[in-house]
């Protein structure tokens, strides 16, 4: 009798332990990629660009306003600034100091990460095209990847004034972009139920919870 009770106790403790573990650790179902934070080919810092420099999201991800996809900016957008900015400010200052100390002209400093960008565009140290070299595409790793049967439209959400952070989280503080939300259907639907939409003459309508809003 007592051994049976001990058995029951063991099973109960195991179940409780599993429950506690499930609560405290980040247990996710298959398919949930919340927290995905892959390494990118160029260590682009959103903290620096979106946070410190406060560049508007739409400056690079211009597709979000007009298209379904927000898009990853083409390298030419990077070059809008990085045709002049080629290294971090600290490195430039250090070079200036060194140049002052050594009494020579400042040299153009190119940071390791930006070097990769220029390599991709087949530019040399003076940012001139290298003869004979072909530009290479930059293969960024996709962070927010919805299943193929889900159609999410950035432009509608941006047009309705939804802040990027609502879904993407505090990107301005992320060194490397991380998937902030779980992007599960329940998460989408929850917001669609709460959110009201203004349509001409029909003031309080919920955002659509129709299947065909996303699946077709």
């Amino acid at each position, binding site marked *: 009798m007592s051994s049976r009770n001990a058995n029951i106790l063991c099973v109960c403790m195991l179940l409780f332990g599993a429950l506690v573990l499930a609560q405290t650790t980040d247990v996710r179902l*298959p398919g949930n990629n919340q927290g995905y934070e892959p390494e990118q080919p160029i260590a682009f810092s959103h903290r620096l660009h979106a946070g410190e420099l406060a560049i508007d999201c739409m400056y690079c991800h211009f*597709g979000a306003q007009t*298209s379904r*996809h927000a898009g990853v900016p083409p390298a030419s957008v990077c070059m809008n600034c990085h045709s002049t900015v080629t290294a971090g400010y600290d490195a430039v200052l250090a070079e200036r100091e060194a140049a002052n100390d050594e009494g020579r002209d400042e040299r153009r400093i190119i940071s390791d990460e930006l070097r990769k960008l220029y390599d*991709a565009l087949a530019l040399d140290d003076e940012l001139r095209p290298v003869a004979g070299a072909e530009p290479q595409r930059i293969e960024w790793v996709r962070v927010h990847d919805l*299943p*193929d*049967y889900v159609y999410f439209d950035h432009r509608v959400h941006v047009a309705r004034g939804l802040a990027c952070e609502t879904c993407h989280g505090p990107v301005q503080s992320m060194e490397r972009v991380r998937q902030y939300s779980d992007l599960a259907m329940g998460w989408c639907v929850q917001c669609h139920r709460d959110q009201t939409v203004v349509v001409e003459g029909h003031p309080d309508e919920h955002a659509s919870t129709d299947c*065909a809003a996303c699946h077709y």
Partner: protein
Amino acid sequence: MKKHPRKTVLPPFEGTVLLPFEGTESSRRGFLQLVGFGIAGAAISGCSRGPTRHVVPALVPAEGVVPGRPYWIATTCGGCEAGCGVLAKCRDGRPIKLEGNPQHPVSSGGLCPAGQASVLTLYDSRRFEKPLRAGAAVEWEELDPALSAALGALRSGTGRVRLLTGTTNGPSTRTAIGHFLSSFGDARHVTYDGLSCAALLDAHEAAFGRRALPRMRFELARTIVSFDADFLSTWISPVEFTRGYSRGRMLEGDTPRMSMHYQLEGRMSLTGSCADERVRVAPHEEASLLAGLCDLLEVRAGATRRLAGAIESCPRRDVVERIAESLSDSGADSLVVAGSNDVEVQLYACYANHLLGAYGRTLDLDEPSQQRLGDDRALAALRDELAAGAVDVLIVAGANPAYDLPDLDLAAAGQLIVCAEAPDETTAIADWVAPLPHALESWGDAEPRAGVLSLTQPTVPPLRAGRTLRASLARWSEDGRSERELLREHWREAVWPSAQDPGTDFDAFFDAALERGFAQTRVQSGQAWTLSADAVRPTQPSAPAADALTVVLYPKAGVLDGRHAHNPWLQELPDPVTKITWDNYACISPVTAERLDLSEGDIARLEVEGDLAPLELPVHVQRGQDDRVVAVALGYGRLGTDRFADVGPDWIGARPTVAAGGVVGVNAATLVATTAAGLRGFQARSARLTGTGRSSELASTQEHHSLEVPAHLAPPGHEVRDKDIAPRATFEQWQADPATALHGRHHVSGEDLWKEDHAGRVRWGMTIDLARCTGCSACVVGCQAENNVAVVGKDEVRRHREMSWLRIDRYFQGEGDAVSTVHQPMMCQQCDHAPCEAVCPVLATVHSSEGLNQQVYNRCVGTRYCANTCPYKVRRFNWFDYEPIDPLQAAAFNPDVTVRSRGVMEKCSFCVQRIQEAKAEAKRDGRAVRDGEIQPACQQSCPADAITFGDLNDPESRVAVRATDARGYGVLEELNVRPSVRYLSRVDHGQEEDSHDH
């Protein structure tokens, strides 16, 4: 195991935008790399985390092109010579869908099945990657100097150069040809059409002294008499004609009109199936009938009696008298057309139109059509030259004479240079092959009608090595300009000065033309056209042997003369009349079938007069066909259609679409006869048909062809299901009471057992006007292209597993001359009380707040319960995974529509992706969706404007107005399923039906 439906095998192409201009080598390679990448990505998708997916943005984006955002490029359809204007819908640098250009003067917005499907040909991996020399791949750098040198040698000498093309109506190309040929001492350009209309042009030459094809204006005709001309499906310019025809049968507005359409024909054509009165005649009777008609018209017009007494020997005098009366009542608002390639027949038709005064009204010679320019007599001359070995260089461009013209000895030419897009019968014997580009990747122009210049511009950088004929000829004449330059220069010199609206700046003019897709030039008008009546002579009635059958060779919608035989969409498109796919066959009438003891699917031997090899092909028993006619479709048995051996799923019960090494159908082009007049005759041979004892099941999408149910099973009074499915009234009945057709239908109470608690703000709905629908099937292919509908192959069609979301139900009633036909497009009716929704256990199909019957592929577990309970049987199940036969053709997938995997149900969604796109754009602009802004693919492609879509809750909307028409009814609405598709009942001049009142 794949868990979820795949959207597309291509990634969303973020940023990979390619300029819609002349592509460079590197950009083309980049495109193909991406295609390859996409396929690799799809093959390994489906795991939970899945493979790492990359985003590859362009280094430098194209101006104005945003990844994921569609854009349209106006260009010209390359599907046939009709030169319809199209808008190519492009996404991420590639065209994915062709839509009719509503502003285009020729096509005004519709697009035929072949045109819709031609986007798939762009992604055909059969197309030449390199020029060929005697079958071996070479570079252009090798071909050009060699040909320049060879041709240069002929320039100095007396060599004979012949250029054989199909109809070439692009002015820039014609100028280039003229320029090229003028550099030789003896050079000639011979034009022919696979589907020849040479007799029509020759007749006008004989009658008016000018070889021209008049512009036909069906919209102005009050009486149309067609002798075997299938003008609504395959004849000359079907989109233009269908639009005109439907405008002539307009039941809306203050002055409703309904033209009277007589069709006299041997086989059962789509046009015949739409006719108000259809008379079966054998081809050899056409001349007598037309002569008799002209005789009667002469009397009525008070003209000189050139054909006096012709009516006496006319076979169907009663019919001809009726037609003559109707024609003369309509006077100049009449149109007599003939499809025959017999000059005599065409001359009588000319004469009849002349007697009626139709020239200048329904027939316009001032702005003649240039959609058929072929000259069979010139062809006959070329044949003789070739036979004599008198041609040094024969250049063939954009034509396949080795298939079309089996009696032309091409090999006898000194050198055979062939310009073609993909391997065919002619390139197989060519000394040199210079690849042509697809119309969607090239620069060009067309002049389908005098004064209408339609531009062709690239929608994608060249995917293959093609170069237009214009550029090739220039290169071989040592002219190194680019294609775009050649075109621009021609337009600057020849088009701009005569343009209707030239402006001051050529660049602005050309850009505007590119944006619209066409430009219009001034044409001389008011020229007096006098008919030299001497050409009209009495006919000598001829009669073939009593028991012989006359072979009628005809093109099928889609495949046409065989040029689209490699296009899987068109091979699987059910013939609008027979509903058979993937085959050609011998159509015979039920009486003939009984006489010959043949039945559907029996393989019969067709032995024709002359020493031609007999053909063996399956029999199709066709109602409404003349008993003396056996009709066989052209365009089959094409080389290279063995590619379809792999189409369709592979499993233990599968029967291949074509046997290994075989081809689709049988080549009937060998039966085209050269008549005494030197013209190609498509209905000139008499033949015998005998059974072989073997049979082969034809792949038909419809098994029961009538609204009549089998008599021994029918409840009394319900032998025909027309009232609940396709009611019909005559024009006179309709004028008396617009709802005549609907009398005697089931009572529709519309009462519910419960209170309705789902009223939405918007309710999407559709109307389909059966009085306008001709059954042309453009919508079927449009839907297939838009919605990534799979091709399943012949065997699956035989098993009734075709995937088309939109089908056209075709019902015959009656026999012989009295066959009446209904074409009824049938797709998901988006019922408000959908029987399918209530039965799905997992909520995979539910109703949206906007009245859509949604099908959620990723939720579907595939019980098929919904399909069973659908009264319309419009739901389609993915029995297998259907892979495209050509991996490259996955690029034609619409990225906005999920590609369904096996085991899920699918169906018409009312093109919800278009609804969502329009709503998104409207939201972005802060406005409501405008009426007419959303057009489903079927509506967009409909040349007859039979389909309307919109918000039924908005009383102002066009669809709501049409839905409240007195003719409106819902198919099977007595089931109280509340369909959102309303049909407007058919109205025509046919036989009056006795309305059985309950």
